[in-house]
């Protein structure tokens, strides 16, 4: 039985200077082999559409086409027993392009192409991509920890197991996370809500600093993080990997495993499992009581990938139960004041694996169905449906045996539908267009016995986008994109009558009143509609062979999130009362990004300055004190202002010799509230990293040191407040300083890696990792638990990886 399959692999790049001379002397050559047994295929026909260029494979299975000019070509590969295949190719220099074919007798159209490269999302914006396996090698255990190694990205932490990505000083709803081509919808508005994603089940992380991923949305002005899996190889194979990680700090570990079976007809099935269990972590000086966490995730995916069509179905389940530092549970500002003035957490118990209140429970289930079909003219139609079911519970220490009842209990269901058409080529233009929409239902259980933090609502969003790029030759590319989104909220919320009236909502939003009452509360039905426009345009220029310049302008608009609109209550860990505002309008952000990069064999660097201005920037600020039965609390209210952000990310990598590599990176962000003339809160301070890696030429081991520094953030707004307490029979007034940033810090890690076995197709590798070697005691400005405790101390990790 013969089948034809084509696999393309870019093997060699030759560095010729003739790219810019338009001389037409390029050569395209390669071999065509049978996928199953690697035997050479004779008599396959390779031609270039629209030209007279062609070649037929000889007895060695090789073809050769001479005299090509640089440019984009459509390759047509055919064989007497197979349907013709089109393959798009951008030829910049002479190259080898090997193909694998497979014969089908009955299923002539089932021909598969796999690309070893993940395609770039936008070409005029510098994009960072990381392999998940590389991230694991640093001993990172959460998705966001991995971002530490990307200049311009940082982490907003709540303790050590909850982290949110920050890109260019923005986080939360301003950062989009995309998995398997769909936006992630969890309760992302919360600064203490980690993205509910198991990153071990993906292969690649791509990061774009700006709302340029218009395909997925136009509201993420900070940027997007895209997680994807590598495309399947199509041989009959069974492979997998497993990794075991044991850590001293937290006395826990992680186990993850993946198994994948591929069939030559393009069908594949794979499964992933990740489990993590940690007890209390410790700082250099003491145990962080109730800081352990449990995580268990799995996913299963099956599908069929062919050259001109394919489908896949994936189900994934994510379960995280993190403890929240016990001493961060405080009753009022007085408790906060004592915590700030103490060097140690107020509660230090013996080490335990038990996780008690305060804690969180997050469950995220996802079902994705995707289908694509390619047509002969290279256009590709993609359809996708996705359902996400997000459950979130937060537990607090409560009276009357209610600790087992969550104080927050939310269920968020999101249905998304995507339709896109890409690869529409008209001369030098390439277009993509699509439409996506989601329907979201948020339900807040009344069984908590606590006022809802976020009300019940239905959110509906539809977006259409149109992207295009123009590429005349290889040294110049212009691209642009437009997107229009309609967002609507239909919410049902109880307000205390006193709050509703105090905020003048009884006059401003009288139309939202339903006339229904419950005790001293009023039921309202706020409805909002927003129309948001986003756009991107940019160019990519090759100044010389190695030097590249990219420039991009991005416009993005974001509708307020539920927390910005509806928040209404006490936020325990911050001892603050937070109020949303129904009057908040969408924010509009303009951002210009530049990227200069140089790539040669020995020395690579990139410089990425950016500047942005956001009108109607939504932020939360202290607006006074409110008397409660627990004492006076500072009130924080959402408002909008004009924000100016600028900064620069620098990255460089030097091969000192063939054994020694040195990487250096730095990033700085300046952020100012232009109207109130105040710095913006929680902006990452100047930070740097350096990495020195030594790997002997024929050795099986490597040694790596990484050094991170973070300066003191001197630019922070003043959110201090005054409270009084009784000392020695006198009433004393004190300032509660919650604004000041901790001093700068540095952290040194080392990684030793050795190949311990490579037999019977099983590759095993052992890593020894020491984090925070110097056991330095520091606090991080971007950790919301910094008021209560230091960061974790020295950690030894042993990591065993098997690939089979």
């Amino acid at each position, binding site marked *: 039985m013969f089948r034809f399959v084509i696999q393309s692999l870019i093997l060699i790049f030759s560095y010729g200077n003739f790219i810019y001379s338009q001389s037409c002397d390029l050569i395209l050559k390669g071999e065509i082999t049978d996928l199953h047994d690697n035997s050479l295929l004779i008599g396959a026909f390779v031609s270039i559409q629209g030209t007279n260029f062609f070649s037929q494979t000889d007895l060695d299975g090789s073809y050769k086409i001479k005299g090509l000019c640089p440019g984009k070509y459509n390759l047509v590969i055919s064989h007497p027993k197979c349907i013709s295949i089109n393959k798009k190719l951008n030829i910049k220099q002479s190259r080898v392009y090997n193909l694998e074919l497979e014969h089908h007798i009955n299923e002539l159209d089932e021909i598969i192409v796999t690309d070893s490269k993940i395609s770039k999302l936008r070409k005029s914006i510098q994009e960072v991509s990381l392999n998940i396996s590389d991230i694991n090698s640093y001993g990172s255990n959460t998705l966001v920890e991995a971002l530490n190694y990307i200049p311009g990205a940082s982490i907003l932490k709540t303790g050590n197991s909850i982290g949110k990505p920050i890109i260019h000083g923005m986080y939360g709803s301003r950062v989009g996370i995309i998995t398997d081509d769909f936006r992630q919808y969890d309760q992302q508005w919360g600064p203490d809500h980690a993205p509910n994603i198991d990153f071990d089940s993906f292969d690649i992380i791509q990061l774009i600093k700006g709302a340029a991923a218009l395909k997925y949305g136009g509201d993420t002005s900070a940027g997007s993080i895209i997680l994807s899996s590598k495309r399947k190889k199509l041989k009959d194979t069974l492979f997998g990997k497993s990794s075991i990680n044991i850590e001293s700090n937290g006395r826990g570990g992680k186990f993850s495993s993946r198994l994948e079976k591929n069939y030559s007809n393009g069908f594949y099935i794979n499964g992933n499992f990740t489990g993590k269990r940690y007890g209390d972590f410790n700082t250099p000086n003491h145990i962080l009581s109730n800081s352990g966490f449990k995580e268990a995730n799995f996913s299963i995916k099956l599908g069929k990938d062919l050259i001109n069509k394919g489908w896949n179905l994936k189900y994934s389940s994510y379960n995280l139960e993190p403890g929240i530092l016990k001493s961060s*549970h*405080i*009753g*009022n500002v*007085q*408790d906060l004041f*004592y915590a700030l003035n103490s060097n140690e957490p*107020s*509660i230090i118990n013996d080490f335990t694996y038990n996780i008690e209140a305060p804690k969180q429970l997050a469950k995220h289930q996802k079902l994705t169905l995707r289908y694509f079909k390619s047509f002969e003219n290279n*256009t590709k*139609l993609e*359809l996708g449906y996705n359902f996400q079911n997000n459950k979130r519970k937060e537990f607090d*220490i*409560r*009276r*009357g*045996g*209610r600790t087992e009842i969550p104080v927050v209990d939310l269920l968020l269901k999101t*249905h998304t*539908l995507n*339709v896109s*058409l890409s690869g*529409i080529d008209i001369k030098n233009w390439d277009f993509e267009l699509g*439409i996506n*929409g989601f*329907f979201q*239902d948020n339900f*807040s259980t*009344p069984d908590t*016995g*606590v*006022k*809802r933090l976020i*009300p*019940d609502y*239905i959110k*509906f969003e539809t977006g259409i986008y149109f992207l295009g790029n123009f590429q005349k030759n290889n040294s110049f590319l212009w691209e642009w994109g437009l997107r229009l989104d309609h967002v609507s909220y*239909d*919410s*049902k*919320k*109880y307000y205390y009558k*006193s709050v509703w009236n105090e905020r003048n909502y009884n006059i401003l939003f009288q139309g939202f009143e*339903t006339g*229904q009452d*419950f*005790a*001293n*509360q009023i*039921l309202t039905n706020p409805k909002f509609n927003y129309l948001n426009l986003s756009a991107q345009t940019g160019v990519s220029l090759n100044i010389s062979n190695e030097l590249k310049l990219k420039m991009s302008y991005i416009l993005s608009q974001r509708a307020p999130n539920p927390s910005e609109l509806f928040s209404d209550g006490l936020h325990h860990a911050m001892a603050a009362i937070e109020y949303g505002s129904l009057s908040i309008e969408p924010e509009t952000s303009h951002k210009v990004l530049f990227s200069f990069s140089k790539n040669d064999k020995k020395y690579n660097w990139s410089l990425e300055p950016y500047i942005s201005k956001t009108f109607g920037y939504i932020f939360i600020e202290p607006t006074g004190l409110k*008397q409660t*039965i*627990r*004492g006076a609390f500072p009130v924080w209210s959402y408002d909008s202002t004009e924000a100016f952000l600028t900064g620069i990310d620098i990255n460089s990598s030097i091969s000192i010799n063939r054994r020694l590599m040195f990487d250096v990176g730095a990033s700085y962000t300046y952020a100012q509230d232009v109207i109130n003339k105040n710095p913006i809160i929680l902006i990452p301070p100047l930070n740097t990293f350096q990495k020195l890696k030594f790997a002997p030429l024929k050795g099986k081991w490597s040694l790596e040191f990484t050094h991170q520094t973070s300066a003191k953030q001197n630019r922070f707004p003043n959110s201090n407040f005054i409270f009084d*307490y*009784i*000392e020695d*029979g*006198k*009433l004393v007034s004190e300032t509660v300083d919650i604004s000041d940033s901790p001093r700068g810090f540095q952290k040194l890690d080392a990684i030793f890696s050795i190949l311990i076995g490579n037999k019977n197709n099983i590759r095993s590798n052992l890593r020894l990792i020491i984090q925070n070697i110097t056991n330095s005691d520091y606090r991080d400005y971007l950790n919301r638990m910094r008021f209560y405790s230091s960061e974790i101390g020295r950690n030894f990790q042993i990591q065993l990886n098997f690939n089979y």
Partner: protein
Amino acid sequence: MKNFLKKASLLYLPLLTILIYSCSKDDPDGINEEEFISNVVISVTSPDGSLQTIDWDLSETNMETINLKANSNYSVGLSFENRSDPTDIEDVTLEIIDEADEHQVFFEFADVSVDVTSANNDTKVGSRGVLLKSVWNASSTGSGIVRVYLIHQPTNFNATNREGFGGFNDVSIDIPVSITD
């Protein structure tokens, strides 16, 4: 290509249908906040049997003053109530008595000096009185305030100032105190 678009829009229709049918949200149930304390009631009984009751309410700042005479024993009773639903008033004090092992009442005075001891009819855990019922004795005249705390899960039950107790405040209110001869 028009054909694809037609197909695409056809596939989009089911979503729109879902939306049209489910566009309005059911009315959510109202929540009567549990374990919430809206009122602190302090009853001060003088040696001659006269009773002063102070009802500290959340909705307004209560400025009523506790009047004491120096060097006399007053019986002070505390109760905590949740009156957020006027038709269903809840006595939270009962919960505190149930969980006496993790609660402590503490009175901290400013500008006046008052000695507080656990009353005979106080809720006790071992020898420790929770101070829901206490005896006050002022040693000198003057006016000041008393800060009434209900501390949940204190780390130390025998402290002499608020910081020493640890734990967290479920209640912290100020009431003026006036002491005469």
